[in-house]
Each structure stands twice: as C-alpha cells, then as structure tokens.
C-alpha cells in the first residue's frame, strides 16, 4: 500500500495512505491520547490539533491528506507554555475532556493574533464545545495568555 509521510510534534511518521482519521492514528497508533474523541463528525472540537499551523478537526482529517504535513498536538506544548500558565491562573478545567482541544484552538488563534478581542475569541472558539461550561474562563485565559506570550 502507498505510504504517507508526515511529522507529529517534530517527529517523522510513515504509515499507510488510507482514509483513516488522523484522530485515531494519534490515539491508537502514535499513542498520543491528549487529543480527544467527542463526536467524530467535526461538531465538537475535542479532537482539535494543528496541521501546518491551522487548527483542524483531526476526526475529519484523513491520513491520506497529510503528505508532508506538520501536525502539532497538545503534547507539543511545554508544561510552562503561556496557555497552560493562563489556564492555571483562571483554574479553567472542570472535567477536562474538552480542554486539550480548546487549548489547541486557542494556540492557533494566538499564533496569528496575540491580542484578540473577546468577539474574536468567541468566534474562533465556537467550534469547541465545553459541556461543563468553562467558556468564561477560557476567554479570560486566552486573552491573558496572549498578553503574556
């Protein structure tokens, strides 16, 4: 079978070029379990990772599309990343299940715009559901992380 080569968190991976969502490759094959499964339909954002710097839903991103891509997951962020520092300051997580996806979406936003308005934050983050309702703290944390990064 044809192969596809790409990077995950700066490490090289090579696998069969199949119609399999990146989400399940990350979780079951690469054993990177920080990326979560919430809906499988691109509706919740729990599976958000960055591909070539853009936030994408890994449940909707097929391995076959990843030739030469740079994938970044929650595991790529160091423990002292400004987003983690801000997340701690605002004590954001409740159950925590959506949080890696939230943080990867936030990271993609801050890459482009370190001072997003609250409207820009809302708009950018609205693909990421938090069933526990941590949105207010997420907003505060993102704006704080932007200022401090």
């Amino acid at each position, binding site marked *: 079978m044809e192969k596809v080569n790409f990077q995950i968190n700066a490490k090289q991976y090579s696998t069969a070029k199949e119609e399999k969502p990146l989400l399940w490759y990350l979780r079951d094959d690469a054993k990177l379990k920080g990326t979560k*499964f919430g809906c499988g339909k691109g509706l919740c954002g729990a599976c958000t990772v960055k591909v070539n710097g853009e936030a994408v839903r890994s449940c909707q991103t097929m391995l076959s599309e990843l030739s030469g891509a740079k994938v970044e997951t929650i*595991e790529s962020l160091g423990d002292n990343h400004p987003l983690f520092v801000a997340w701690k300051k605002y004590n954001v*997580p409740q159950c925590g299940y959506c949080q890696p996806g939230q943080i990867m979406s936030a990271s993609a936003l801050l890459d482009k715009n370190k001072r997003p308005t609250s409207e820009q934050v809302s708009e950018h983050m609205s693909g990421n559901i938090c069933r526990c309702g941590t949105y207010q703290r997420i907003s505060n944390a993102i704006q704080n992380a932007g200022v401090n990064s």
Partner: protein
Amino acid sequence: MIDITSVSRRDFLKWTALSTSGLILGSVGCTSKNSNITEFSPNLFITIPSSGKIKLVNHRSEMGNGVRTSIIMLLCEELNVSPNDIEIVQATGNSKYGDQNTDGSKSIRLNYERLRVMAAAAREMIETAAATQWGTKRSQLKSENGFVIYNGKKAPYGEFSLEASKLEVPKAPTLKNRSEFKLLEKKIPLIDGHDLAAGKAVFGMDVEVENMVYACLVRCPSVGGKVISHDDTQTLKVAGVIKTIQLSQIPNPVGVQNAIAVIANNTWAAFDGAEKLKVEWDLGDNSKNFKGPYEDYLKDKLKEADKKVHSVGDVDKNRTKKSVKQIYHSPFLVHAPMEPLVATAHVEKKRVKLWTPSQDPQRVRKSVASFLKLPLNKIEVNVTFLGGGFGRKSQADFSLEAVALSQLLEGPVKVVWRREDEIQHGFYHAQAFQEIEATLDSKGVPVTWEHKTVYPTIMSLFIPSSQTPAKWETGMGATSLPYNIPNISVKTAKVKSPVRIGWLRAVCNIQHSFAINCFVDKLARSQGIDPVDYRKLILGRPVKRKTERGPQDTARLISVINQCKNMSGWKDKVIHKKKMGFSAHNSFRSYIAMAVEIEGSSAEDVTVKQVDVVIDCGKFVNKDTIIAQMEGSVVFGIGALFYGKIDVVDGVIQQSNFHDYPVLRHEEMPIVNVQVVISDEEPGGVGEPGVPVIMPALANAITSAFGNEISSFPVKA
C-alpha cells in the same frame, strides 16, 4: 441518589492502626450496614509512611465536580499538610469507603465532617507521638505543612508515624474553626488542573491494557428489540476488523441492549465496521405500543392526573373566584457528556478487572458480580477520570457490555461508544407535562395551589411495574413548594415509557422548578407586581418545614432572593427597561436565586447577556468549585432551555449528534457573576441545584421581554 444516609460520628470512627512501615489509619462501616468485614483493609483514606509522601485516598468520581480537590482539601485542612505535597490514591469501587455514588450532589454532604474527623485524629496522634519523643505536651507543639514543630525543632510527620500507630485513636479530635481554615472556603485551584489541560489525565477513553481488542456496538434502536438477521460481509472487509459477535440483552436496571459487536484491533476499524454492518431488527413491544410521537401519548395523560401525592389544607373547599392556570411542557433530555461512554474489561477465569469512568463503581461491582456469579472480592473496578457524567455514568450498562464481551472473547476488550450511540441509547431525563392552577385572594396571594405533574418514573428502571413518580421524585420541587400557601394539592397519573428514564443533573427539579417559577411569574404579571417582590410576598414569613428530601428553611431562600436582587441591580435595570428574568429554588439542601439579563428581539434570536447568581449551600469546601459549578449549571441550563430536545417516535430516538442535539457554544456564553453566602448551616449540594434555577429565570426573561409566554422548551427549536 434516593436518600442520603446520615452518618454518626461513632459509626465511622472505628479506627485501626499498625503497620510496620508507618501509621495507617482506617475506618470501616461508614454508611452501609452490610459492609463486608472480610474486605476490611486498614489503610483507608490516610497513610503516613515513615518516609516518602503522605498518601490520601479520594473515593469519589472526578467528572468536573472538582471532587478530587475537595476531598483532599477536607483531609489536608485537618491534617495540616499542603495538597501539593501529598499523593492522591483513587479508590477502587468498594463499600469499605462508604458511599461512592457520585450523584445527587452529596459528596461534601456525606464527607464534610467524617473526613475532617479522620484527619484531625491522625494529626493529633502524630502530635502526641512527637510530644512523647520530645518530652513535652501535645499542647506545647504545633504542626504545619506536614511537620511537627517545637522549641526550634522541626521534623516531618513520617518520623513519628510508627509510634503514632501504637496510640489509641482519639474519640473526639478537635476540628478547626472557620478562622483557622487555610484551605476550606478558599478558592483553591484543581489539583489535577494541569494534567487535565495538558491531556495527561487518564479518562476511560484513554485506557489501554495489553492485548485488548476494541469493540463498537450496533445496538437495537428500541429498548428490548431483537436481531432478526445481520449481514457483516462489508464489515469484515474493513482492515483491522476481527469479527462480529452477538451480545444479548441484560435486563434493567443494568439495561444492556441486544446488539452486534464489531471487534477490531483499533477504534477506527471498529467504528468503520459498525457503519458498514447491516442489521434487520424486530423493534419489539416498545415500538408497537408507542406508535407515533411519545409526546402525544404523554399529553393525554395529564387529563388522568388524579392520584394525590401531597396535600396541605383543603383545596376543594377554599378555591376563590380569581383563578390562574397554565400547562407546562418539558422534553426528554440526554446527558451528552463530552466523553462518550466507554469501558475496558478483562474477565479472567475467576477474576475481573474493569477500568471505567463510572459515577457509581460499587453499583458496577455488584452488577458484575451478579452477572458473572462471582463473589464481590473477585471484581476490581478501577475508576478513571470521567469526561463529564451528569448522571449518565451512574448507569452500569456500558461497563457491563465490556464485561459480557470480554467473557465471550476470553480476553480484554474496550467498548467505545460513538456520540450517536450515547444520544440514542441513553437513560433520559423524563419528558413531562404539568398543569398548575392557583386561586388568589384580594391581595393576589394564592389561597389554593393545584399542581398536576405527569412523567415516567426513574423507578421503572428498577421495578418495571412502577408507573407513577416516586415520592423522592415529586419531592424535587413539586411537594417541597417553599411558598406559604394554605391549601396545596399535587397529583400525578400512571404513565409508561418506551425508553429508559434516568437521573440527569438536578433530575425532577428541572421540570418542577421550570413550571413553578414560570407560574409564579405568571401570577405576578396577573397582579401587576414585580416578580421578585411577588416571590417575597407569597413566601411570607420565614418557615422551617420538613420536606420529602430534607429540611427546608425559607428564610434562606428569602435571603438569597434579596441578595440577588441587590447584586444584579434588579430595580435599576427594570426601571431602565432592561430585559430581565428571575427565579429561585431550593434543592439538594441549597438555596439559589438568579437574575438573568437578555438581549434580542424574539425568542428565536435571544441571547443571554448576564447572569447573577447567589447561592447559599451552607458550609462549603472549595469556593472556586462552587463558582465553577454555577457557571457550568448556567451553561447546561441555557443549552437545555434553548435547544434540549429528544424526540421519541415509535419508541426510537430521533436525534443523533450535536447537529440535532445542540448544546451551548462559546459565542453564546453570558457573563456569569456568582456570590457564595458564608453560612454555618449544614453543607448542601452544588453540582446540580443551579440548573433548575437558570432555566425558568431565562424563560421568565423571554416571556416578559417579548410578550409571548414561554411554557414549554426548547424555545429555539
């Protein structure tokens, strides 16, 4: 869930000590009389080794409730150690810990005193041992951050643990006063906060055991239906699929449905294989007996509501001519925790291991034991982090599916539910129809109050013949009306349901508080009185009364109403024609009032701008967790009021994922301000009681802003 067992101090202060490595303190018995003494293990809750970290046990399920932090705070406060210096051990499901069912907002209520007493006793023993060693009295030394300090000397607790373990356990250790608290009632960040944010916490979904296979189940769309035939030709062509296997129903209350399981060597193959499976179902009696929308059936039952479940005074003799009446409807709701259901099981010859995001690991353990006919002590239930629960993960079905499959496959298996499975195979919050009629005196105060409330009961899960709500269900709001009305009657009717009914965050308080708070607003409107003032008018003088689910003190409700009125600037905002709504409710021994400000021009385009919350939950543990739970309840409740709706047609669920079961999103988030009342009353719950307050407050805001009365939800569907 149904009741909380009151625990006397003596019951749980059965200590045991002694080990060679250090002080180990334990308790037995706790809440359940049938605690199995053969399971008794001495090292419960607190282990202080001679060297190394102090180990503290958390026995409740962490699902966003912050309970791992709260339980540890209770222990650390009296032990005088920092939560950052200890190791948390997550308890397996075992009755030796006492109640572990993390449901009913009772983790703190059951443990507030119990754990503090255990920790204070341990600290006193360490201090006594240190005093003996240093030739002084316990009163002369102090303990701080895991060290005993005296006269320039400072030594870690571990140095005294061997000696301490030989001492008598103090019967009544002294607990701290509020003024001495270092942790309790402060805002303490979650101990697991970073692990959760960084994706390092292990959820049920993240469990892997050696040689396990993955299973995705195609379950019968109706409860109790059967497989007629299935075709797995396309399924078996999927790379990674190993085989398909039929799984038989396990009856309620476990409630495993007839299904075909697709077994694969990775999750995606199992999902893909399940997608390609063709099954012909006999949908069974539930489908035949409930033709068409269930809503039509239930609506008719309201007319049959003549079974009196509660009565005060005499309604029939005291009706006045001034009558107000309204019918309320609330739909089936589903939990939709962010982590769909999942469980991993390994059934070995005479032993079972389970890893499950369960809210109720003891229930799972018992269900597995009776299913496999094994003794309880052969079953180990490991509780992972839960990606949300909201009551769904109190059920045992998903854990038992994994056990049943592991038995058939003779190896470890992880059963992963897709979102669609979670939405369509739930234990739903019951759809309800209600009617409230009141007659008023000349001042507009109700003289009679007649409440008809009709919905399928959760008890039908346990006793199939149950058709009317249990007392503890009507006790969630309907029979615990806080208003001072001399003549009250509450009536229900017999109702069946084709779907399973379960607990969902705040349970029957949802429908009851919705109807009651909307109706109180309707009465206020009919009298041209401000809804906040009207609530105070009909609450009248404060009373303390017994209700089905515990004591009610309306002074506390009046107080949160007053505080919320002030905090929200209600008067000013009303004068300035802001679009406002109000509501207040007492549940799970807590008292909450909320004021809601909305924007928009109709129910369809309404957005919530701000919510002001005042909560009196008695003595509390982590202030920030209470605030977070109020924020979360507001989001959960607005989502339900705007969009929440599960349709049941021919006994089959019509919704499937977040596109047709929407929940609140980031862009819809209001500003939420929370005020927590400092109180000396017994602890109340916080995880659930916010939900039944926000929903009618928002409905009332919409009604008063746009004129079209909201008596049914969802309002945006």
